[in-house]
Each structure stands twice: as structure tokens, then as C-alpha cells.
């Protein structure tokens, strides 16, 4: 065909669209600054310097800024994601290949201190802790309480983000994190808890093991788990619990949640369980510990709207994920919560995030990973006291215990480094210690070191 005979007017629509998008892209106010879908701030226009200019970094920065903040970004990505779903047909999707090793490949090489020893774990001195991991004074942490001197903990240099949460896997409209058992870490975890429970038993303190399962171990068919290089979490939990001392009250949180797997017990865009999932775990603890669980109906239901969590953006087709809702059940009574996080004061157990952006709404619970919180229920003045040893999974789990205890102390083991749990129990007259890290942490070398440090 002789192309020179083609009318140039055919090119007009292309030129018009090109011109229109060029003009739009030059209108700076139309450029977004935050990606809600990816949960990140978008690139900013680079600062000028002669060095950056000569090295090409300045121009690279402009190129990156231009594409990263392109007007209508979310809509374009929606189209792009829709196209990506046409690449093939598979319910399961993941980026890269699935690791066939346990949580941390180097776990066999990581020496752990003697759990019975009193010395804190030796950690490199030259590494500064992050601001969030700085030791928190217990005097600040718990109002009205006094501290006794004891050996100080050395906070680890590990950033919270370093904690392995497993590779993201997408099955249909739900995202999961891969988890494979590490027998070595399971053994060490069981040994650590057993040693602590035996010592606590001598003081009449009950130790309750109630790890928080992750969604893949509860919601996904066991036949699939093998193919996904994941371990069945009911078997993982059995393996750990079978090795624990008789002084540990073992709670089968996994099977308890499995019994409710047709309910909304795990988020689809986030690695946490939902408040409902946490409630069933709370029920299981109560059953194992001989307490009466508060009924859901006796709490106030609060739906705080759409939520997007941590897995979103890590799976290949995030737009296929079904959006989550932040459901809460607010315990009733004369309850006050105090938090410590450099400043202390009253703080709601479940705060209002209904008007916030959907990402990160999980922070509504328990002051969002504060090193320590103290919940007081004045309606139970003669009630027992408990210590909950938890991570972020414990944030929506802890509030329910305000219905059973006068004082509930919740310690985030990733951030609290003031005192050992044994000392804490003694100081605050704790009756029950509920140990509820999430399942992946029990298999993690970093967390394993922390547990030994805390339960020394």
C-alpha cells in the first residue's frame, strides 16, 4: 500500500489525544501525591543540584516524578490491572516463585542464648535502634506504678519491617502470606515458653499459649497448602504444643477459627485477622482458661467502613482483591485505656477511623502497636489481672479481655524492652499471661531471639 496517499487527517484523533493528555499532564495540581492503592507517597519533584544534573540523577528524578504522579493515576492503574487479568486464567497468583524453605533460611546458624540464663541477649552495640524501638520507660508506660531496678534490656537493631511475613499469594479475591514450618524454631519456641511457664507455675501464675493463626492456615484447603509450600497450621500448632510443659495452657486457636472459616474472620487485603476472628480466638482462650466469654451481642457493633491492608500491592493483581471492611465490637463498661509511646495518657481501645483513608485503618485498635497499653475495667475491681504478650494481631484481640480482667496489660514484644516478663508479672501482680504472637513470629529467628530475651 502506498502510505503517502493516506489522508493525514486520519492521524488527527491520535494527535488530539496526545495533545490533550500532554496538557493535562502539565497541570501540576492534577498530579496526585499519594497512591492509596499502593499505600505510599508518590515521587516528589527532585531537588536541583549541579552534581545531580551532571550525574543524570536530576533528569532521572524528573522522569520518575512525571510517570509516578501522572494525572488520573489510579484510574490508569485500574485499566492496567484489568488488562493484566487477561494474561491468563488462574485462581492462584503470586509474584516470583514460592520459597520452599522455612521462614528464614539462615535459622540454623543463628545462635540463641540459654533461656534459663539471666543475661540479656548480646546484640551488636554499634547498631542504633529505630526510634520506635527505643526502650520505653515503664514509669511512663503505666501511670501510677513505680519501677524497680533490674537488668536493662538491649533493644535489637532489627527494624520492624524486617520481620518476615511470608511471600504474598493471591487466590481469587483474597491475599495470603506464605508460611512454612521451621521445626528448629518451633522447638525453640516451645522450649522458651515451657521454661517460663514452669517458673510462673511456682508463683501460681497461669501461662496460656494462644498463637494467632494466619489466614492461609485456616482458610486454604490443606491439599493446596502443600503445593503452595505452606505448612498446615493446625499441625504446626500441635507440634509446638505437644512439646510444651504441662504448665502451659494450650489453646487450639487454629481449629477454633477453622470452625468459623465461612465467616469474615480474616481480611482479604491484609495479613491480620478481623475483629471477628480475634473474637473467636478470645472465646477459645476463655474456654481453655475456664472463663466466660462475653457474647458478641453484649458489645457494640461498629462498622468503620472500607479498609485496605498490607497485602494489597504485594500480590500480582491487587485490584482483583475484594475490599475489606473494618468491623469492630466495642466492649462495654467503665473501661479506661492508657497507652505508652513517649507520651502517655488515656486513649480509646478502639478509636474512630471511619473518616480516614482506607489504607492502614487497622491502626484503630489498641493505639496501633504501642509498646505497652494498660486497660482498667472499674466494673471488675476485684477481678484478676492479665498480661497479653502480643504483636499487631493482638491489637483487636486484647480489648475483649477487658470483660474478664480488672487490669489488662498488653505488651508488644517488638517494641517493649524495659523489663523481663517474669519481672513484669511480679511487679503488676499478674494472674494470667496470655502469649499470643502470630504464627509466623513463632517461626522467625528474630522474633525467636526476642522471645528468649523477654522470657528469660
Amino acid at each position, binding site marked *: 500500500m502506498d*502510505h503517502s496517499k493516506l489522508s493525514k487527517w*486520519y492521524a488527527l484523533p491520535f494527535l488530539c489525544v496526545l495533545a490533550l493528555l500532554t496538557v493535562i499532564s502539565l497541570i501540576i495540581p492534577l498530579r496526585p501525591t499519594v497512591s492509596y492503592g499502593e499505600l505510599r507517597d508518590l515521587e516528589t519533584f527532585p531537588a536541583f543540584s549541579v552534581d545531580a544534573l551532571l550525574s543524570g540523577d536530576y*533528569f532521572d528524578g524528573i522522569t520518575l516524578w512525571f*510517570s509516578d504522579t501522572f494525572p488520573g493515576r489510579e484510574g490508569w492503574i485500574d485499566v492496567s490491572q484489568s488488562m493484566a487479568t487477561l494474561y491468563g486464567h488462574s485462581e492462584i497468583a503470586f509474584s516470583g516463585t514460592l520459597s520452599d524453605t522455612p521462614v528464614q533460611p539462615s535459622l540454623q546458624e543463628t545462635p540463641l542464648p540459654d533461656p534459663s540464663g539471666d543475661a540479656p541477649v548480646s546484640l551488636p552495640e554499634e547498631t542504633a535502634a529505630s526510634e520506635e524501638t527505643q526502650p520505653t520507660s515503664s514509669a511512663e508506660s503505666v501511670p501510677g506504678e513505680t519501677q524497680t531496678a533490674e537488668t536493662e534490656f538491649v533493644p535489637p537493631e532489627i527494624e520492624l519491617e524486617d520481620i518476615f511475613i511470608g511471600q504474598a499469594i493471591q487466590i481469587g479475591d483474597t491475599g495470603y502470606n506464605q508460611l512454612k514450618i521451621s521445626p528448629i524454631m518451633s522447638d525453640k519456641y516451645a522450649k522458651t515458653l515451657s521454661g517460663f511457664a514452669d517458673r510462673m507455675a511456682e508463683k501460681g501464675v497461669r501461662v496460656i499459649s494462644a498463637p494467632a493463626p494466619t489466614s492461609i492456615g485456616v482458610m486454604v484447603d490443606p491439599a493446596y497448602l502443600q503445593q*503452595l509450600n505452606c505448612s498446615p497450621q493446625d499441625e504446626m500448632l500441635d507440634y509446638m504444643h505437644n512439646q510444651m510443659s504441662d504448665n502451659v495452657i494450650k489453646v487450639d486457636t487454629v481449629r477454633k477459627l477453622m470452625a468459623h472459616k465461612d465467616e469474615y474472620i480474616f481480611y482479604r487485603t491484609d495479613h491480620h485477622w478481623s475483629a471477628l476472628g480475634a473474637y473467636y480466638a478470645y472465646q477459645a482462650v476463655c474456654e481453655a482458661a475456664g472463663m466466660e466469654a462475653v457474647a458478641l451481642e453484649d458489645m457494640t457493633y461498629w462498622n468503620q467502613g472500607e479498609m485496605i491492608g498490607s497485602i494489597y500491592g504485594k500480590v500480582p493483581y491487587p485490584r482483583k482483591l475484594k475490599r475489606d471492611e473494618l468491623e469492630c465490637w466495642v466492649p462495654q463498661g467503665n473501661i479506661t485505656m492508657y497507652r505508652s509511646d513517649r507520651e502517655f495518657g488515656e486513649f480509646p481501645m478502639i478509636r474512630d477511623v471511619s473518616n480516614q483513608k482506607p489504607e492502614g485503618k487497622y491502626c484503630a485498635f489498641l493505639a496501633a502497636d504501642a509498646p505497652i497499653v494498660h486497660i482498667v475495667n472499674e466494673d471488675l475491681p476485684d477481678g484478676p489481672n492479665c498480661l497479653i504478650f502480643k504483636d499487631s494481631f493482638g491489637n483487636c484481640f486484647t480489648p475483649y479481655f477487658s470483660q474478664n480482667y480488672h487490669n489488662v496489660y498488653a505488651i508488644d514484644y517488638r517494641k517493649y524492652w524495659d523489663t523481663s516478663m517474669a519481672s513484669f508479672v511480679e511487679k503488676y501482680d499478674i494472674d494470667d499471661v496470655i502469649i499470643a504472637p502470630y504464627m509466623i513470629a513463632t517461626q522467625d529467628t528474630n522474633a525467636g531471639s526476642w522471645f528468649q530475651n523477654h522470657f528469660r
Partner: protein
Amino acid sequence: MVFSSLLFLYGFFPFSLLAYGLCRGNQRAQNTVLLIFSLIFYAWGEPKYVLLLMAMAFTAWLCARQTDKAQGSGKKVWVGVASTVMLALLGHFKYASLICGIFGPVPQWVQRIALPIGISFYTFQLLTYVVDVARGDAQTQESYWNVLLYAALFHQCIAGPIVRYQTIDRELFGPEKRSPELTAGVSRFCCGLAKKTLLANPCGALADTMLLTDTALAGGAAFEENLAFLTGQSVLGSWLGIIAYGLHIYLDFSAYSDMAIGMGRMLGLHYLENFNYPYISRTVTEFWRRWHISLGTFFRDYVYIPLGGSRCAPWKAIRNTFIVWCLTGLWHGASWNFLLWGLWFFVFLMLERWELGKLLKKSRILSHIYLLTVVLVGWMIFRFTDIRLGLAAIRSLFGLNGNPFTDFTTRIQFQSHMFLLLAATVACLPAAKLVKERGTSLVCHRGPWEKAWNVVLYCVIPVLLLLLSTAGLVGDSYNPFIYFRF
């Protein structure tokens, strides 16, 4: 800057078109616009190396002028000067590490030498200019700025095709008025853009998944981990990875050529085709007639034939072919695996010249399987600069590492990408071209049908491809043009 970046699409490109259009009727002004935009385009990626480009263009301009004035062997002297200077610079920037590595540890300062973008392409272009002038195949260009424009023209400066001076001399600098083919150019540009963003990029991501990413491969410390990954990859997983890589490398590179040719046409410049559906070939010889044509013809006309070509003693013909394939391999990268890759094809070319060629003519299917196997295994050599990793990956293709035949990851990745692979495969075949030609001949001279066909072909499809490509580019972090490294 790359063509498939949003800044190029909605910043550089429309403004260059606008500026060029405003100078309509004044070719000198249009060339000035092209030169300014080309230098900005090049400087955007490598600000300091724009001086190197200018210096090399100056060398070519000067030597060509001297060559033109010189008589007899004097011409050869100036060609020799130009070749020495430019190849020395290419050697310094591209091959210094490789050469130093032969004699021992590579010094730090050598390791720090960065490869200027597109140096392999514009060095060869400038060499063809000087040689063509010496041969009398091209006229001397009096203006240095015109030689610089020829070398720096942003359509082809950094990733080809290698445009010979004589190909565009008349159109770029001649007195005749250019005749832009705006519609055809737009159509070709959009096809290239879509090939890159909608097909090549996801194929590349799949290849990375199955055969490790460049980032993973760059970490020498992770060698054992990478080796374990590749030796453990299933047979089908390895084939899936290398097929995806083969599709990616063709679609990526040909897309760039499509865009360059398209932009050239918009301005009335006609660059020669660089690809002609290479994967439909039946022999390696045919493959290389269809793959990166501008490079193949460069080596044929400026190395192979001057050495004597095939019209000489058999051993000399083999030597000449051997040299060409060593150079072809090394042109693609300063690493021994590229040399091995060139020699891989040399071996099969030699075999085809003898008995294998006759055997392949007997079966169409077997010859296609043969060609694809040779090319895909070749891509495995090409992909891994560490030859040990490449060999491990090749062994995995045939199950020689004790690796499983297939596994869950392979199945899922195949299912997740099967329609993409199908579409990418179709894009490697002349199917779309045949449909277009058939449709055009059907509606030819049929009034409204012809108009409707042209509207769909030249109005609707380009706009649709532009919009879909934009969607693909927004937030797409996976967007490197792989031929930049050359």
C-alpha cells in the same frame, strides 16, 4: 529517556512534533529543531556523554572531509584514523573491563567506567559514514552540525536501527521537500509502543520470574543461591522462562525499531526495516537475515566482504565468518557469554552450509523446531553473563540437573500468562500484517467500506493502543529497554 516513558510520550515527543511543525517549509530550521531536541534527548540520560557524542561526530566529520580530499592510500589513512579513534573510544568505554580481566584483576578505575548510552549504535553509524565517503558511496557532508544530527537523531541514536548515512542523506539534507507520512507513521509508532508496553514488558517480567531478575543476577555474592534456583527450576519452567525471554527480547527490540521508523515517517524520513519476523525462519542463516538486519548488513558490508567474504579459499571464508560472529557476539556486550553466543550461531551456520542445510529443507516442521531450539538455547547463553549460570539453566531445559519435569509454580505461572504468551506469539508472526493487507484489498475502491476500514485502522486502533499503553506505563516500574546495554 526511552520512547516508552510517559515523559517522552507526553512531554518530549509532542513538543518536538510541534516545534518541527512550526518550522514547516524551512528545512534548515526543521533540522535545527531536530538537532536541539536530539541533544536534549541524549543529554537527558547521559548529560556528560553528550560531549563524547559530539566529539565522535566531529572526528567522523573531519576524517570524512580529509578522506574526500585525499587521493589513493591517503583515503585509507583517514579511514584508519577515524576507525582507530572511534573504536578506541568504544573499546575504552565498553570493553576495558573485559580486556583488563584477561590479564588479572580489573582495577577499580576501570570498573567505574560507565557505558555511554547507545555508543555501539552511533559509533557504527559514524564509521559507515566515513567508509562510505571513502568508497564514494556517500557525499561528504560539509556541515559538522549535520553530521552531528545524523549521529544524534533521537529516533535511532540510542537503540538503532543502525541507519547508514547514504540511506537518509537525501531526505535529511537534500534539497527536495520532505513528504511526511503522518498517518502511517502514527500507526507504526503506536504498534511499536503497544508491543513494548502491553506484550514485551509482561513477557520480560515472566522471564524474570522463571529465570531470575537482572538484579538477582547482578549480585555476585548470591551466586550459590542463583545456581540453586536455576538447577532446581523444572524442565517446563525453564522452557516457559526462555520462551518468555525470547518473546520479550524480540518484541522489545522490534518495538523500538517500529517506534523509530514510525517517528521517522511522521517527519518524512524513511529508515530501513530492522526485523522481518525472525521467528518464522527455518534456518539460522535465515534467522540472521531477518533479525537485527541493520547490524547484520553492517558486518556483512564493512567486515565480512572487505575480509574477502566467501569468494576466497574455504578456510578463509570460515575465518571471515568466524571473525564476524565473534564481533557480533561481542558487540552485544562486553562479556564472554556474548562471545560464546556469537560462536554458538557460527557453529550452526557452518553446519548449515554443509549437510545440515540440505537436511533442514526436507521437513518444514523439523526445521522450525530446530531453529527455535537453537535460538532459544542461544538466548539462555545470552541472558546469563556468568557462563556457569547459563550452562546450569541450559541443563535445566533438558532435565540434566535432576530437576523435576514440572512443578506447581510452573503450572500457576503458565496458567496466569497463557493468553499473554499466545498474543505475544501471534505478534511475532506476520498474522496482523496479513489481516491488514487482506482487509485492505477487500475494501479497496469500495467507497464507504474503504473509508470505514481506514478509520478503524488508522484512527481508532492507534488511539486505543496509545491509551492502553499509557495505562500500562502508569506506575509500571518494569520498563527497561534491554538493548540500551549495547
